[in-house]
Each structure stands twice: as C-alpha cells, then as structure tokens.
C-alpha cells in the first residue's frame, strides 16, 4: 500500500504506461510521461537546492503541468503550495512569505504580477512555458531544462507518511489566510477511503472542477492516479458556460464528477441536461456547501441511475463524513444529512456540558479524530492550539482531535445533520469565507471607520456577501472604490456585491456593532423588489 502520494503514480505508471493520465485544454500526457517528467522536475528542484520539507509554490492556471508539478515537488521530498491564480497579488505574496516559499513553478504573466519584494525573496522560478527574458534577481528556469535530468527514477529522499505533502490556504478570520498543513498520511487516509467506497477503476474518467488549491481536487487527482484512471481538468473556458460544460462531460465520457453543489445547480438550470447526454456518468459527489433540496431532487430525477453522495469535511481533515443519497427519502427529507464517519476516521459531537453526544436528538460541536486530522496551521501555534486540541475524552495515550466549529445533531437514523456554525465563517459557492477577513480588507481603507460583512442566504450559491460601512466624517467614497480596494487584498468571490453606507452602524447595549440587526435588515432588503434595495 502506498504511504506517500508519489507511489500512487509510480505504481500506475508501471501498470498503465501508455494510458492517458491527465487532460487539460485539449492537451494530455500519459502515465509514462507524467512519471518521467515529474522525476525530472524532482531532480531539477533538488539540484537547485530544494531540500526535504521546503515549500514550493505552484502559481499558474490549470494545465497538464499542474500534475507534473505536484508530483515533481513531492518526489523531491518537498511540500507544494497551490496558489490561486485568480487571487490578488498581495494575497499571493503574503502566502509566499508566510510559509517561506523558496521557489515557484509559474507562468510569466503570473510571476510578473507579484510585488518586487516577493520576487526578490524567491530563489528561482521554473517557468511552465517558454520564459521570455530573465528578470533582475530571481533565477528563471525554463521548462525545457527538465530534459537534462534523469527521467527513470525519482531522487533518493527518505520520506515517511508523516511528512508534509502540501499546504492549503483558507480564509482567516483575523484578516489573513491561514495555511493548513497536510501530510501524505492525511491525504492517503482520504484517498484510500474514496478508492474503497467509490470503487474507482482504471476505466473511470474523473473530472476536476475544483481549483487545485481546494481540497476537493485531492480526490480528482490522486484517486485517478491510484486507479490508473484519467483526470480531466476543467478550466474557466468550460467552467463558466454550463452548455459547454455539459458537452464536455458528454464528449469526454466523464464517469465520476465531484464539485460544489452550486456548480451542479447551474448545470441543471442552464445546460439542458438529459440522462442520455450524461449516460456515462455513474457517480456524482458533492461537498462544500448545503445542496438546496429542490435542486437535488431535480438532479436525482434527471439522472436516476447515477449514485449521488454528499461529502462533508473541512480542509483540516478533508472529507470526514458522507451520506449516500437515498432516493426514496428525498421527497420527505427537508435537509440532507452529512452522514456517518468515513472509514479510518472517527467523529463525535460534543454538547454544552462537554459530553460526547450519544443519544438521538443530541446536538453539539463536531470533532474529528484519526489520521485524517491536520497537524495544524503553518507558523500559527496560537490558532493551531485552539482548533487542534488534545483528546480529553481518551486518557490512554496522547493524540490530537480537530474541532470543526460546526454544530451538528445526531439523528434517529444514525446520521449527523449540519445545524450551523459557532462563528462567522460562511460558505459561498463552496468557498470558505471568514467575514472577518472581508471586514479587515474594508477597514484597511483609510476612509472606513466601521465595517460589517454580512452573508445573505441565496438559493444557488448558499450565501452572497454584502457590507454595511460607516465612513470617517468628511470622507466621500463610492462603493466601487471600496470594492476596488478590496480586490487588491481578497479574492473576488469575497468582495461584497453591494456596499451600503451609513453615518453610524447600530450598536447593541454593550456597545458592539449589532450584527444581528444588520443581518436581518440586509436579508429583508435582499428579498424586496430590486427597485427598493438601497445600493450604489
């Protein structure tokens, strides 16, 4: 059994060397090519000074080089950090500094968008396309240099499953994203559970809808490799256009789809789907946000022979519970369960009396235990100590458990149901968003005195973001200026769609901003006819 991720590739490359491993934008490479190129990249990285445990950033839009890079970095014994190619340069620069990324694998236009000091901090950049010219300072290495390195074997590195494989950054409530450290063991605990449960075979064709910095992609990439199957990377030219996307699923004969529910809803509503078109599809997995029942029912009716599974779990554990949709219950269920624990993972709910919930009807915060649980957040001992805690429910040996911050209920049917959050983390399109990070961005503008970000529930994307802002006396600022300011700090999906200005924000009796009132007002406003909404 594989104990480090690259073994999944090497085994499949031995068995299926000429099989297509990955497809993206009309290009593809075989298992042999993926194995050889990643070996070469690993040697290149080591020769340029990358050592075991070093962080290497991946900063380019999805393409076949994405997989070569991920595997190349782990073969070098290093840790890859997928950087969102659509995030503002400031945020990417922050992440590069935060986890001490020494080198980037990138494209010229992305590299150029980074700030001076960030670029100066990097030791070298490997360019996935031809580099046009070398920059001042950072060493530029063209992809063509890979061919100068050995292809048959990866470098000698001593790795165990406890070594880190990648770091995924998620929204941080204090204004800056935080890096979730994930080991080979963390990843493989998930991958092995998926392989068993979903019986992925070499005949399968997995689509990859999620961005590579989002942990849904771990299934798409590594379960394809594990089985000797093919992964089809979905890029924006397809993702944005439901008709095109549906055509793609049909033409490429996709058999397994995994995405956030809103991507499926958009396909349902806008792509004229039918069962014949999607005849090869056998399994649909969804995760990341609550799937509105009305759309799930439509999907289930449309595709009666497709297995539907609801997966749940934060980045800190990847998927920890799952529920296979029971079609006969759909009409009567008003909410889908998050289900039961995955094999090799344990979950339990802890109530207000700090006891583990055992009785049906009990509610509490969901905790996760087992080898899926992260070590914590990179260079953030404080946050780690809050969330990855000693298991006080077991005294025989030391171990850590993760508190999800999700409130759940254990039901009669033995499934857990999601109730809500303890804090101000929300989901929008499956993206995890800390309202505090948005507020930090707003407050960083000199004209802003007070700011509150509010999640307004939405049918399709779970939540939309709006903000209410009080400017300093005498300041005049337009909503669009503030949105523009935000764009330099936070990803687009976090920018408030609407910004309402007030002289002062309402306060509670203790003098804190009355978020509850503002939330209620915003929701009411959102439900009114458009002409009455207070907006720009």
């Amino acid at each position, binding site marked *: 059994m594989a104990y480090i991720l690259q073994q999944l590739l090497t085994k499949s490359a031995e068995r299926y060397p000429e099989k297509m491993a990955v497809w993206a934008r009309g290009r593809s490479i075989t298992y042999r090519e993926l194995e050889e190129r990643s070996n070469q990249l690993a040697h290149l990285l080591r020769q340029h000074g990358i050592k075991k445990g070093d962080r290497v950033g991946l900063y380019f839009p999805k393409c076949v080089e994405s997989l070569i890079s991920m595997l190349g970095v782990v073969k070098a014994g290093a840790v890859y950090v997928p950087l969102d190619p659509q995030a503002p340069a400031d945020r990417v620069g922050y992440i590069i500094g935060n986890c001490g990324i020494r080198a980037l694998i990138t494209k010229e236009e992305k590299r150029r968008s980074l700030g001076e000091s960030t670029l100066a901090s990097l030791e070298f950049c490997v360019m996935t396309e031809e580099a046009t010219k070398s920059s001042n300072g950072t060493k530029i290495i063209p992809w063509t240099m890979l061919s100068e390195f050995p292809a048959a074997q990866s470098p000698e590195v001593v790795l165990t499953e406890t070594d880190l494989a990648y770091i995924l950054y998620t929204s941080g409530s204090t204004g800056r994203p935080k890096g979730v450290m994930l080991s080979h063991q963390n990843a493989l605990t998930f991958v092995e559970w998926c392989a068993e449960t979903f019986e992925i075979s070499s005949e399968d064709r997995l689509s990859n809808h999620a961005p590579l910095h989002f942990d849904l992609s771990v299934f798409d990439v590594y379960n394809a490799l594990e089985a000797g199957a093919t992964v089809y990377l979905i890029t924006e030219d397809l993702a*944005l256009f*439901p008709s095109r996307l549906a055509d793609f699923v049909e033409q490429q004969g996709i058999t397994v789809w995994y995405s956030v529910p809103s991507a499926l809803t958009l396909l349902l509503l806008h792509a004229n789907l039918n069962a014949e078109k999607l005849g090869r599809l056998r399994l649909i997995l969804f995760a990341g946000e609550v799937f509105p029942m009305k759309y799930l029912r439509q999907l289930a009716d449309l595709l009666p022979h497709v297995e539907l599974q609801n997966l749940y779990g934060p980045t800190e554990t990847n998927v920890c519970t799952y529920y296979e949709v029971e079609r006969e219950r759909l009409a009567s269920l008003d909410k889908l369960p998050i289900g039961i624990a995955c094999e090799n993972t344990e979950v339990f709910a802890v109530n207000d009396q700090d006891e583990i919930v055992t009785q049906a009807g009990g509610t509490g915060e969901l905790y996760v235990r087992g080898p899926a649980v992260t070590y914590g957040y990179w260079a953030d001992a404080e946050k780690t100590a809050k969330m990855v805690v000693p298991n006080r429910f077991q005294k025989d040996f030391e171990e850590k458990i993760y508190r999800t911050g999700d409130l759940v209920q254990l039901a009669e049917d033995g499934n857990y149901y999601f109730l809500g959050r303890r804090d101000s983390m929300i989901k929008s399109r499956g993206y995890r968003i800390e309202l505090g990070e948005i507020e930090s961005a707003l407050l960083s503008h000199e004209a802003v005195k007070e700011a509150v970000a509010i999640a307004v529930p939405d049918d399709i*994307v779970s939540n939309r973001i709006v903000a209410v802002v009080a400017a300093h006396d005498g300041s005049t600022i337009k909503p669009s200026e503030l*949105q523009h300011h935000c*764009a330099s700090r936070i990803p*687009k999906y976090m920018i408030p*769609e609407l910004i309402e200005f007030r002289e002062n924000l309402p306060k509670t009796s203790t003098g804190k901003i009355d978020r509850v009132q503002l939330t209620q007002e915003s929701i009411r406003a959102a439900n009114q006819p458009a002409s009455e909404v207070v907006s720009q």
Partner: protein
Amino acid sequence: MSTVNQTPATQAPVLKDQIRDFIMENLAHAKGITSFTDDESLMESGVIDSLGIFRLVSFLEEDLRVRVSDEEINAETLKSVNSIEQLVLSKKK
C-alpha cells in the same frame, strides 16, 4: 438600473456604451474592477463569473431584446465588450 449619460447630440444610447456600462455597474464593480478595455477578455480578468454570465444574458434578452440560445453562450461570444456587441448586432439583422 444602468443609466447612460447622453450628450445632447445623441438620440439613442450607443450599443457598445450600453453594454460596457451594464458590465461596469453590475459585474465589474462587484469584483473590484474599475476599468477594462473593449477587447479584453472579461473571463480572464474575472469580471464575469459563473453567475455573472446569466446576469449578462438576462441583460441582453431583457434590455437589448435579443434572444440568445444556450449554444451561443460561450467563451467566444461573451469574451469581451466587442464580441458581445458583435453578437447583438448579428441578431438584429
């Protein structure tokens, strides 16, 4: 919701301006984008996302009164202000 400033000499709003204004007010600002050229890819710059596509199509259908089929909703036709103008003009023949 979008208004087009009309100079005294203009009788009817210029199509391209209408398109550009709609995109600016309803899509770009919400992404923090305050300017874009007429031939720039609105998808690559992130002005248009998976929800924005449908707001744009609604605008074409309701405000500009052109019917757009599902096949016509793709990365070529809706790429930029220029291509959208082309799409609309092709429908108004």
